[in-house]
Structures are given as structure tokens and as C-alpha cells.
């Protein structure tokens, strides 16, 4: 997926699932956030399930669907069918993501999420808002998924940004066994580092991977010097307990580079997106912590000397 071997920005390409302009919570100023596909973690409450797989996926928006069945007719492999009521069903085992259904659907109810883009194409898109970066001290943020999954592509984008004088930020979950994080972080002005839960066992249960390398990466990164904004998703009854917050503060307090904490309360957006890519319902229902609880967590971080922002 990395386009290894192809080093020119024109041909080096990767999978991008969204480019969002006017991002104001993903680093300083007004930014364009480039979302790369692929993530090493499988957080149970994931807000962006369409970001997890490294390649493209077919997304079906039932709300937009007019049941005109243009997609059924357009599919060369018979992967799409309509039931008696006219509702669409996709047999994903037959789908080869050719995208003809998406072309045929004028209602935008069928979409291929994940587009192969060259570094040059990404740069053309992010250059559009240079005016705003220069005014606001903003720039480009690489997010995901986790950009570490497509490290070569991500690095080439960061290099291209630096060459053009655009400020960069890297938004990562920090799980990087092969040193990709350090390599990329060197080229980022700010690192947005997600920290879900400190406890090793619980982290493994919730995300599928151990917290140990993440914490080690965070410490190494903090010593290397870039500004770090730590972001903590807050999921009710999952990681919002005093114990986890206390341990998070203990981990972060000694790190000079971490001055700012963003708290991201859980929201229900992920479940719909999961349905759209056919990922089935979440294994568990989650909810945001109560307002009073979030406020208490905010003041706990604040008392520990951090600058706290809600929502990034």
C-alpha cells in the first residue's frame, strides 16, 4: 500500500479517505487534515471505522438511497441486489471495488471510500488553503486511521509540505514497532498523540494492542523535542475512571513536551459509519461520560498543570 520503490511525488501514492479543509482542532490555526487509511488499533468505540482497513471500501448510505437500483444494474459482478421492498444489499465477497455502482449512483448513496492519490495530488489540494494557514499559523495535519500505517507516503507528504514552507502536524495513535513514528515526528511541527488508556491489559482489551510500546514511544518522542498535544478519548465507564485519569496524569506529568491535553468525549457517529461499510453493529454500546464527569476530568488535568481543551 505504500508505493515503495516509487519515490517521485508525482508517482508515489497512497490511500486517502478524506481531506477536510477548515480543520481548527487538529493543531494550531486553520488546517487541512489529510486522512490516510489504515490503523493498527481496533478501538471498540472507533469513531471512524471506515479508516481502519488499509485499502478502499464500498460505502452505502441508506438515507440517501432512492432505491432506483442503478447500482444493481451497473455492477458487473452481481454483488448488489435489491430485496422485495427495494432495499439494497451488497455481497461484499463478490465486490472487487471497481466503483461502477458509485459512478452510476447520482444520489451519492454508493461511494468508494479510499482514493489512491499521489503526493502531488495531495499537495495540490492542501495548497488551496495556503492563504488561511499563513493568516492563522495553521498548516497541514496528517491523520487517519493512523498515518504510521502508510509511513512512506506520509513521510513524502511531510517532506513536500516542509519544502513548500507549510507547517505540519502528525495525528497518531503512537503504535509503531518499526521506528516510523520517530522518523515522521522529526518532520512534524506538532504531534497529536492519542492516549486511550494506560493499563496494559485493559488497553489490549479495548484496542487490540498493548499500551506498553505506545507509552514508550510517547516518552521517546517527548525527549526528542517536538510539541506534543495529547488527546484522550473519553468513553463512559471505559476509560473515564479516576484510576485511569490519575495514571494518565502520572505518565504525562514528567514530559516537558506535553503541555496541552485535548479531551474527546465519545459520540455515536461511528456506529452509522460501520453500518455503511457493512462492518455490522458494534460489539458493545458506548456512551459519553456525564457532563459533570467530563468537567471533573478537565479540572484534574488542569490542576496537574496542563492546558486543557475539549474537543482537540
Amino acid at each position, binding site marked *: 500500500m505504500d508505493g515503495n520503490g516509487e519515490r517521485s511525488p508525482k508517482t508515489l501514492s497512497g490511500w486517502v479517505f478524506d481531506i*477536510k*479543509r*477548515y*480543520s*481548527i*482542532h*487538529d493543531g494550531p*490555526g*486553520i488546517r487541512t487534515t489529510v486522512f490516510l487509511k489504515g490503523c493498527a488499533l481496533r478501538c471498540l468505540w472507533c*469513531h471512524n471505522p471506515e479508516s481502519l482497513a488499509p485499502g478502499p471500501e464500498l460505502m452505502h448510505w441508506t*438515507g*440517501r438511497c*432512492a432505491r*432506483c437500483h*442503478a447500482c444493481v444494474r451497473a455492477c458487473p459482478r452481481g454483488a448488489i441486489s435489491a430485496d422485495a421492498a427495494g432495499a439494497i444489499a451488497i455481497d461484499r465477497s463478490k465486490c472487487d471495488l471497481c466503483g461502477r455502482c458509485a459512478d452510476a449512483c*447520482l*444520489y*451519492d448513496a454508493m461511494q468508494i471510500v479510499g482514493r489512491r492519490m499521489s503526493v502531488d495530488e495531495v499537495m495540490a489540494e492542501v495548497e*488551496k*488553503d495556503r*492563504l*488561511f494557514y499563513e*493568516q*492563522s499559523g*495553521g498548516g497541514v495535519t496528517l491523520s487517519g486511521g493512523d498515518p504510521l500505517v502508510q509511513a512512506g507516503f506520509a513521510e513524502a507528504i511531510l517532506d513536500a509540505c516542509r519544502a513548500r514552507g507549510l507547517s505540519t502536524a502528525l495525528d497518531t495513535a503512537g503504535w509503531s514497532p518499526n521506528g516510523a513514528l520517530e522518523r515522521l515526528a522529526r518532520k512534524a511541527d506538532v504531534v497529536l498523540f492519542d492516549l486511550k488508556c494506560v493499563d496494559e491489559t485493559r488497553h489490549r482489551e479495548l484496542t487490540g494492542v498493548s499500551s506498553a510500546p505506545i507509552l514508550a514511544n510517547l516518552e521517546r518522542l517527548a525527549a526528542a523535542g517536538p510539541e506534543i498535544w495529547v*488527546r484522550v*478519548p473519553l468513553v463512559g465507564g471505559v476509560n473515564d475512571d479516576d484510576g485511569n485519569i490519575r495514571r494518565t496524569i502520572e505518565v504525562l506529568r514528567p514530559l516537558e513536551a506535553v503541555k496541552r491535553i*485535548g479531551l*474527546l*468525549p*465519545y*459520540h*455515536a*457517529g461511528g*456506529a*452509522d*459509519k460501520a453500518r455503511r461499510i457493512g462492518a455490522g453493529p458494534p460489539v458493545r454500546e458506548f456512551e*459519553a461520560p456525564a457532563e459533570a464527569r467530563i468537567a471533573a476530568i478537565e479540572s484534574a488535568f488542569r490542576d496537574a498543570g496542563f492546558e486543557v*481543551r*475539549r*474537543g*482537540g
Partner: protein
Amino acid sequence: MNERIVRLRNQTLEAKPTISAERAVLVTEFYKRPETRGLSVPMRRALAFRHILENKAIVFNDGELIVGERGPAPKATPTYPEVCIHSLQDLRYLHDRKKTAFASDEETRRVYAEEIIPFWQGRSQRDRLFAAMTKDWIDAYEAGVFTEFMEQRAPGHTVLDGKIYRKGMLDFKKDIERALAALDVLTDPAAYDKQEELKGMAVCADALIAFGRRHADKARELAAGEKDPVRKGELERIAEVCDRVPAEAPRDFWEALQMYWFVHLGVIIEYNTWDSFNPGRLDQHLRPFYERGLADGTLTKDSARELLQAFWVKFNNQPAPPKVGVTAEESGTYTDFALINVGGLKEDGTDGVNELSYLILDVIQEMRLLQPSSMVQISAKGPDAFLLRALEIVRTGFGQPSIFNTDAIVQELVRQGKSVVDARNGGCSGCVEAGAFGKEAYILTGYFNLPKVFEITLGNGVDPRTGKRIGLETGDSEGFKTFDELFEAFRKQVRHFVDIKVRGSNVIERLYATYLPAPFLSVLVDDCVANGKDYHAGGARYNSNYIQGVGMGTITDVLSAVRYNVYDHGHFTMAGLREALAANFAGHEGLRQRVLNRTPKFGNDDDYADSLMTRVFEAYFEAVDGRPTPRGGTYRINLLPTTAHIYFGKMTGATADGRLAGDAVSEGVSPVQGADRKGPTAVIKSLGKMDHIRTGGTLLNQKFTPQLLADETGRRGLKDLVRSYFKLMGHHIQFNVVTADLLRTAQAQPEKYRDLIVRVAGYSDYFVDCGTELQNEIIRRTEHQEI
């Protein structure tokens, strides 16, 4: 807000708009007098003005500090039968209509039936105006190609500068006497006309002085009977203030506000001017009084605040005069568009933001009234803190203040030939209209329906709604081989209808100059006195006529849809498109979805669409800009709709961008609702491709939910968005903070709200793209944040 202001604010909020016959009766009574028939027109107008001011009721509302009402009570609204007669049917309709109603009682209707209507029938300006219009003008007007501002209201559209804070009416009279003395009948063929006009102005200045004295007398009378010693003292102070102003120049903050208010009443009693008469750069005008008052201890920040708040209430007591018919459709609101300007530049070009600017912002936030409206002028030299403070108020969601680019305004005015100092002393009024305050008559003549003209172009000159031929025969639309040929036909039709509009306006301008001069307004606007010429006749230093283009977003998307699908990609033919439009897309849903979802649209920073916007802009600009008006002015364009985009939408069938027949066209220069899907920076980039400097104002509306503005990060983001737009020389931007109700509408009609961005958590997303559960959560949160 202290107890008094709470009370005054409640008074104005609770007052119900009614029709008052007072002014109509007085003006009719005056005109009926045989001895007035031989007077010159300006003298007759001036004496009628004096008659009204001498005889109208003097009103003191309980507890107020700034005094004077246009009618006999707050929101008792006069009519102006010499301009427009309201029939009994109109009065009943105004009484009963659900929106912007004006109540009238039996006695009022009787007076109209017996005295007012019979006298003015055939003599009102509205009667003259429609009689003077040609058939092609009437046809285009009835088809909804354009509207006519002066059919129910007099030209106005000017804003005051600083002169009334330095000069009283007695000083103006001295200027008038000097001008009279300088007249030479031997060498100046217009000397007699000038003499009559100047004499009329002097009568008006005296009339306003006498009106002030009547308030002083009334205050003394009330003080004598007042038991509460505090109120007694206030009334005595009011009497002293009214002894001084408007006869002489104000000496302190209180007198300055009362001075303005008397002048304002004079202007809105003389005529029902379109519109927006207002003090303009209030923080600049009041600053010397404010600083002096604080220095000598006669004023505190709190007492200044209270006086400003009392002043604010007075504006809200004067709804826009009743409008009916097309005029009501194009401007369906009580607001009379007095737009207080705050911030901007001083005349020497340095930053004008001062302590009073911030105090006025506090007043705007606390008062939260429909009127006066307010705006901030942001120059590159102004502090971010000022803009951030304004955005804090925007967040509270009542649409004020709107945000303007001083540097663009100055460039616009200088391009039109104003001196840089006059330009810096100017600003915007109404919705977004740039003007040289105190020195310019900039008349809005009517809205112009750009999408309708394209509809008529497709019909080869025939309006498909009526089947009537009202345009040129520019060719069968199915016969155009290239897009350029089609565009050329559209350009010719634009020119054709602009010609018709200009011909009409040139006549209407003469009707006002001839039959209804405005000697009082002429006292106030440079250089009417020096020129001995009326405001309506070209007496002002600068004279402009505007034709306000409407539907820029819609016409751009229409052209894009046609070019992209018919000429570039052959997705459908012109015949197929016309069939779909005639059927209002019934049975053509595939075609409609293609133009809605698969066609480049304005507002997405996409040059394919945006370059068509600039082409329309050029065609419209060339058709209008630079043409002379009879009073020595120049026609200009601006791009704003008030509520005309809804009216024009009603008059326009389905359009090639997927819009259904009767739906509103786009408003101002904003993209079509729901068509901008790349976020606010893309909207601003698209709008940045428009040459705002060659307009007299453009209006951009952006919607945000309160969450997007809730924290410091949100406000700073918005601040930088505004600054970036202004770097691109955008003229104006306003933020509509959406309500939970609007979100519910968006949930029900997602296709119309594809552009609505909401803050989710840690990121923002398109509202319609959020799942229902999440949408409900956002609606709950928005409700929670509403006040």
C-alpha cells in the same frame, strides 16, 4: 442593563406596530389649503414639513432620556400619502397579515376613507410613477425581472457624517443664507430654482428647531407635575438638552445623542425614505464628547452606556413604514436598516477603534434589539481583539453585528471617484451598501433577477411562466452550437432588461426631483446647500444609482450545469433539459440528481464554476456600471437581496441547477443553499474570485452552529477566516448561528442543507452526513446552548 433600561426595552418589545393617521391627516390638511397651491414645490414641501412638526403630538415615554417619536406613540407608524396611498384594502391586509402586520382601528380607516384617499387619488407619486412607465417596463416588472424601490417609498439611502455634532440648525441656516446671498440671477439661469430650494431648506431648519423647543416645553411641563424628585431632575435636564439642540451644536454626550435623534426624526417624518438613515460612524462621532465627559467628570462609562441604551430603544420604536405588494415581498421586515457602523479608519487613515467602539459592542449585545442594526468595520490596521469581541456577540445568534472590510469599502468608494478622506469617513448602510457618509445620495433603484433573465433567454424572449414575449429574440436555445453563443444571448438579454430598468429609473428620478424634493434631508447632505440643489435633484457631492443583482449563486450553477452537461459532456441535450424544466423535473429525477450532485457548483473553490460567476459578474457590471443618471450621477452594481431572493424565486420556474420552480434563488453572493460542500475556506476562495471593489457592496452569509464558536479555538478560527476573506478584498460576511429548529428542518430536508457544518466532537462534519442518532444529539446540544 439597569432597571430603567429594562423597562424601556420592555416597552419597545411590547409595543405593537400600528398605523397612525396623524402625519397623513396633517399633510393632507396642509395641501388642501388654497394658499399653498401657489407656492413653489420646494417651499410647499418645506412648509408641509413645518406644519407636521408644529402640530404632531409630542411624546414622552415613561422614564426615557432621549426623547421624540415619529408617530403619536412607539411603533405608531405614519403613512406618506403624497408618495403612496394605502387603500382600505391595504389597511385591512396590513392589519390581518401574519408577518410584519400593522394594526389599524375603525377610526383610522374612516379617516383614510373620507379624507386621505379621496384627496390623494391621482396625485400620489405612485400614481404618477406607474402612469409614466412604458409597457416593456410594466411587463418586466410584472414578470419579476426587477423590482422598483421608489413605487412606495421615497429615495433616501444616505447616512449622516459628523457635521451635526459641530453645527446646530442655526449654523446650517447661516450657510443657507450665505448661499442665498451669493445667488446671481443675472448669470445663473437656475438662480430662481436655487432660491426656492434654499428658502425651503431654511424653513425646514427652523421647523426642526421649533420641534426641539416643543420638547423642551413639554419636559418642563412634565417636570412641574412630577412628584419623584429624581425623575423631575431628569426632565429638567431633558428640557435643557432640548433648549440647546438642535438649534445649536451639542456640547456633551447627552446633547449629541439627542441632536442626532431630532435630525433622524426630521428625516423619517419628511419622507418614508428607502431606507437606512442612520448616524453611521457613531463611535467616531461621539468619541470627543465621551472623552471630554470622562475627563471633566460629567460622564461615566456607566452613564454613557445608559444613554446609548436609551438611544437604542428609540430606533426600535420606529418600524419600517408599511409596505405592500412587491415592495413587501422584496423587503418583508419591520427593520428599517439603520446600520450603526463601529470601528474602521479615521480620516487620516489610522485605526479608528477606540474605547467607545467596545462600549457600543457591549450595548449591542445587551440590548439585543431588531433595530438599530449594527456592523463592525474591520481594517487591516484594526486590532484582532475588536474582531474577536464582535464574534463573541455573533455567537449569541441574533445576527448582529455583521462584519465589513473597511479597506474594501475605501477602495470601492475611491474607484467611484470619491476622495480618500470622504471614503474613509464612509462605511456601509442598509444591508451592505457602501457610501460616502454625509456627502452622497446613493439610491437603490431595485433588485434584478439574474436567473429569470436566463429563463427568458432559454425561451428566446418568452417568459415560460406567462407565455408572454418580454425579452429580445436572441435565438432558439436548442440552436446554439456552443456555450459561448448561449452566453452571448444571455448577455444581450441582461443588457436589454437593464436598459428597460434604467429608462424607468431615469424617469422616476425626475419625478422625485420635480414633484417631491426633500429640503430637510438636503440641509444635511453636502453639498446641497452650497449647490442650492435638492438631494433628489443631484445636490449631493456624490450621486449613485444602484441596481442590485440577485441570484448570483443560482445563475452561476445554472450556467455550469448547462455548460458541463450539455456542451462539454453531452449528458443530456438542451431539448431534454428544457423538457425537464418545463415539467419541474417530474419524471426527470435522474437528470436532476446529475445537476445536483455531479456538476461543478459555485462555492467549492472550483474554477470551472467560479469562472462562470466572474463571467456573469462582468456581463452585469458592463450592462450597468458607468451609465449616467439625469441628476448627474452614475449607475453602479451591488449584489444583495434583502428578501427579494424569495420573491424572485416565486416568479422563476425550475432552473438547470436542480432548483424546483418557486423555490428561492440564492441570496446575496452566497452559494446556492446546500451547494457548497467543501467547507468555509472553499466558499471564501470562490468568493475571493469576485472583484468586490467594482461593486458598491456584496453580501455573504455563512451558517454556523453555536458549538463551532463556543470556545476560543472556534472564535480564533473564524477570526482568521474573516481576515483571510478580507485579504482577498471580500466586502462583507455575516454569520448566521443556526438554531435547533433549523437543524430539525435540515434533518427533514437534507438535500437543502448539504452545506451545514456542525461541530461533532474533536472534529466538524456536515450535519446531513451524521447519522440520525448523532444528529439528535447535536440538536439537543444546540438547544442547550441557546439562550
